[in-house]
């Protein structure tokens, strides 16, 4: 996190706000709710409280404007700059302005979500500057997260608590952190190949690794697929259909490039799993045979992508057919004739011909660390 230069802050923790005007894009009650929820993002993790005023001068005056609007910081029409806010202080200090030329929404990935943008702007109103943590709310560029699933990242919690102190509570709130590729503790939720690239899923993010590039790139899952959940359990590339299949809990999604195919999520039980399977831990598909291996707990199943049915004789025990790789796997990949089993910070390189583990690596070595 980065504090605003000079560390400006409100001298009191009991602040007021006023919604001066409304956007025609949303019902006024939805604007009220989005603003209230955006302020709660900060009041939930600090001693700050916010009281709404309906007239007069409030600490944080909230308004929608187009183009030049009298503060020497004109808006620029659709896209580009979405909003801005002023650091704590009198008069214009603390005020938040939203560009009316954006399409403001209460939910969904189309347009710009007012709650997310307002939560960011109120960070400025309270004395935070832009963070260099790409996963932080205070990062300068917009990225969509399903508002109901939003949790204030730890970087932002640390920032606001540095300015206003912690909650007067024995239990302090915590938030998600942005994963670092070369942290020796790096583990993965799921891994899938796609058209020669690899995607390593972790929480709200995934790393994308291209075989010809040294650097891996970190993205929000929601940047590519806004309707997918975070913390994916398992994934694999379906070479027959040129798609990627992702699992979370009892549901799965099929991705065709940037699109999630319609009709998804669907239930994993439609694939032929018994009802006592609650989640899939890991998966990979054999490009040559069209057989997909799906791991859950200490068992695995095999699905035939050509006949689109679960094969007879499964589940089988992982321990029996893949000795030395353990159970409750994080992810599995097949590459260059070997099967790579990811569990925690370790990767077991398994040779299916000799039926044994031939080496153990650190998980993040797959991110070129």
């Amino acid at each position, binding site marked *: 996190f980065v504090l*605003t*230069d*000079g560390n400006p802050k409100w001298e009191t923790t009991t602040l007021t706000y006023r919604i001066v005007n409304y956007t025609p894009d949303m019902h006024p009650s939805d604007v009220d709710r989005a603003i209230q929820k955006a302020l709660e993002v900060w009041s939930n993790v600090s001693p700050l409280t916010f009281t709404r005023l309906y007239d007069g001068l409030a600490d944080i005056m909230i308004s929608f404007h187009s183009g030049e609007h009298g503060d020497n*910081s004109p*808006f620029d029409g659709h*896209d*580009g*700059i*979405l*909003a*801005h*806010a002023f650091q704590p202080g009198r008069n214009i200090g603390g005020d938040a302005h939203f*560009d009316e030329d954006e399409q403001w929404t209460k939910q969904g990935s189309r347009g*710009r979500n007012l709650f997310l*943008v307002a939560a*960011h*702007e109120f960070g*400025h109103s309270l004395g935070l*500057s*832009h963070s*260099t943590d*790409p996963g932080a709310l205070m990062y*300068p*560029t*917009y990225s969509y997260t399903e508002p109901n699933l939003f949790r204030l990242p730890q970087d932002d919690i640390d920032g606001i608590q540095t300015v206003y102190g912690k909650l007067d509570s024995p239990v302090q709130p915590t938030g998600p952190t942005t994963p670092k590729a070369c942290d020796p503790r790096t583990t993965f939720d799921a891994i899938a190949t796609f058209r020669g690239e690899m995607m390593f899923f972790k929480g709200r993010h995934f790393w994308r690794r291209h075989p010809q590039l040294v650097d891996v790139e970190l993205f929000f899952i929601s940047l590519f697929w806004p309707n997918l959940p975070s913390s994916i359990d398992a994934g694999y590339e379906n070479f027959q259909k040129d798609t990627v299949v992702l699992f979370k809990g009892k549901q799965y999604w099929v991705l065709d490039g940037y699109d999630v195919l319609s009709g998804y999520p669907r239930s994993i039980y439609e694939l032929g799993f018994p009802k006592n399977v609650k989640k899939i831990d890991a998966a990979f598909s054999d490009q040559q045979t069209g057989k997909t291996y799906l791991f859950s707990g200490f068992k695995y199943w095999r699905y035939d992508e050509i006949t689109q049915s679960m094969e007879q004789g499964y589940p089988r025990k992982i321990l029996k057919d893949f000795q030395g790789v353990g159970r409750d796997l994080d992810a599995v990949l097949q590459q260059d004739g070997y099967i790579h089993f990811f569990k925690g910070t370790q990767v077991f390189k398994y040779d299916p011909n000799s039926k044994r583990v031939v080496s153990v690596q650190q998980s993040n070595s797959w991110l070129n660390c």
Partner: protein
Amino acid sequence: APVDQGNKDEDLNLVKNYLSQFYNYENVGQLYINETVATTEKLKEMQRFFGLEVTGKPDLETLAVMKKARCGVPDTGD
């Protein structure tokens, strides 16, 4: 290959506007020997902030970040 002059001009305008908006390009405290040096230094500052490769040049990655929708508050202190 032929250069698309139209795009190049557009990109240069984007860089100039972006730096002016978010990196106080026209209101710098530092005194630079000329505008090119000032632009390079501000570009480096922007690239460092976003964790991009620090080249001081408006490469494709840098332009892509500049084209993203964002907050109008500068990334650097006033």
